[in-house]
């Protein structure tokens, strides 16, 4: 697909301990540098597992995962943290950090175990907060913000990691339309700045709006992949979700109808 993939799954098999079924089986996929890839698929098909494998948190039973020229397992943890950032779906906080202090945690891969962040780290964290439009709320508590803002704070924390690859796990699922639009706008800007973005989603519309490449996963394997116009057809989506889906173009936007 591309000469220079940033992330590559090569014949990866994975199953959770004490469970026999393979979550991913012979899973091979490349992610192009500087592009946005959306991963679509029904619940329980291994989308989040795939992200956890790409993060290095889970280790494949067989097969390899490459980041650039090196295998994932050959990186140290802080090296990985400087290259790959994750925006989890939801992350409850039990303690009321200020947004700035919380976002600052993204600097951890660059700081030693016994270090504390310095002025430069603060500057990076402030820039990240500004990028997601929460600069004014830097001193607010993470426990007192809305669900939409929470998602943006998690994104800001990932941005302070200054990684090439940004992975988001269902970033829009808890957001209202305004916050969705805001998040998509920010992601578009990030791509312009050269970031590679990879996200899982349940929303075909969101995928169609920003993805360059769409991957549809079913039962731990790639069912369809390619450009939005080629892959996101009613037939393919019907096949994946086992429900009738129609895709239409309305004012240059792809919209989807389902029964």
């Amino acid at each position, binding site marked *: 697909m591309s000469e220079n993939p940033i992330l590559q799954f090569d014949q990866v098999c994975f199953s959770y301990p004490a469970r026999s079924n393979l979550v991913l089986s012979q899973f091979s996929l490349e992610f192009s540098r500087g592009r946005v890839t959306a991963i679509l698929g029904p619940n329980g098909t291994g989308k989040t597992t795939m992200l956890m494998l790409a*993060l290095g948190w889970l280790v494949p039973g067989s097969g390899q995962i490459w980041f650039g020229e090196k295998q994932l397992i050959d990186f140290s943890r802080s090296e990985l943290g400087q290259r790959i950032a*994750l925006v989890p779906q939801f992350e409850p906080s039990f303690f009321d950090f200020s947004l700035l202090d919380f976002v600052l*945690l993204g600097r*951890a891969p660059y700081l030693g175990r016994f270090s504390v*962040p310095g002025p430069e780290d603060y500057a990076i964290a402030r820039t990240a907060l500004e990028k997601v439009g929460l600069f004014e709320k830097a001193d607010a508590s993470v426990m007192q913000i809305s669900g939409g803002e929470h998602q943006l704070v998690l994104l800001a924390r990932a941005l302070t990691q200054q990684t090439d690859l940004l992975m988001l796990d269902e970033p829009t699922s808890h957001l209202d339309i305004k916050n969705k639009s805001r998040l998509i706008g920010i992601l578009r800007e990030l791509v312009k700045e050269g970031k590679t973005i990879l996200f899982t989603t349940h929303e075909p519309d969101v995928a169609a709006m920003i993805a360059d490449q769409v991957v549809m996963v079913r039962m731990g394997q790639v069912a369809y992949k390619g450009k939005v116009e080629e892959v996101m057809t009613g037939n393919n989506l019907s096949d994946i979700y086992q429900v009738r889906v129609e895709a239409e173009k309305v004012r240059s936007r792809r919209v989807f109808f389902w029964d």
Partner: protein
Amino acid sequence: MLLSSLMLALIGIFMLSLLLGRYPGPGFMSLEQARNDTMASEIVMNLRLPRALVAILVGMSLAAAGTVMQMLFGNPLVDPGFLGVSQGAAFGAGLSIVVFGSSPWLVQGSAAFFACLGLIISYSLAWKIQYGSWVLRLVLAGISVSAVFTSLLGIIKYIADPTSQLAELTFWMLGGLGAISWSEVFIVAPVCLLCILGLLLLRWRLNILALKDYTAFSLGASTGFERALILVFAVVATAAVTAISGLIAWVGLIMPHLSRRIFGADARFALPGSMLLGAILVLICDGLARTLLPEEIPLGIITSLFGAMVFIVLMMKTRGGGE
């Protein structure tokens, strides 16, 4: 800054506590007297000074351990002794008083031994439990090991001589610094200071380790190793002070809350803040314990009373989401 003013307050209270007591009468003695009266300077140097130093160590260790454990377990209601440490120490003390003899050395040694044993059993049990996340497994292990020690302690209480041994055991469990001399300071201080220093060095890292496993991992942390290291520091400090002071309740539970209210949740500030507050609380409570009545009041009773009152006030003054 707030931290420095707390530090100054601690030093001030420490100085005052050296002058506070029941010699020559209840209340403060004058500086003049402390310098010129041989009896008074003897009391200050050999009784009050080591006792005040231990009070500071107890407060700092318990509050530090409470702060880090509440963060690591993502649970603001965790107490530093819950991993089998408090009940292990109580059982050890009871065993020594009833079976081996009640010399202070034996009681302290046995309490320290069983406190550490409680931790080791809890920790290895957590590895073996086939259920839930790592944090949940530790909590479950801590609860069950504590329950076993509590039952064993029940047997010991049952066979103890009610007039002498049971009274002594009960007194030990209420906590107190009445028997502290310089030798306790020399043994416990290096252990506590080492642990406290370790925790202070890791204070920002703690914020990362308090996040979900995979998030902490994605930020470059070796979650298993680093959390274990922090737990060992926290528990060893708790076990060390518990062995010489008995069960001092509520300090490790409440001071972290108070500190987070004042300094915010970031452990860079909440941890040292909590340690200073803990030291101040125990110093004041111990001062009251040895001054209010002719007979010394067990320290644990006063810290519980203070702790519970602070807790009630904190709960009534919720700030937004609350903790």
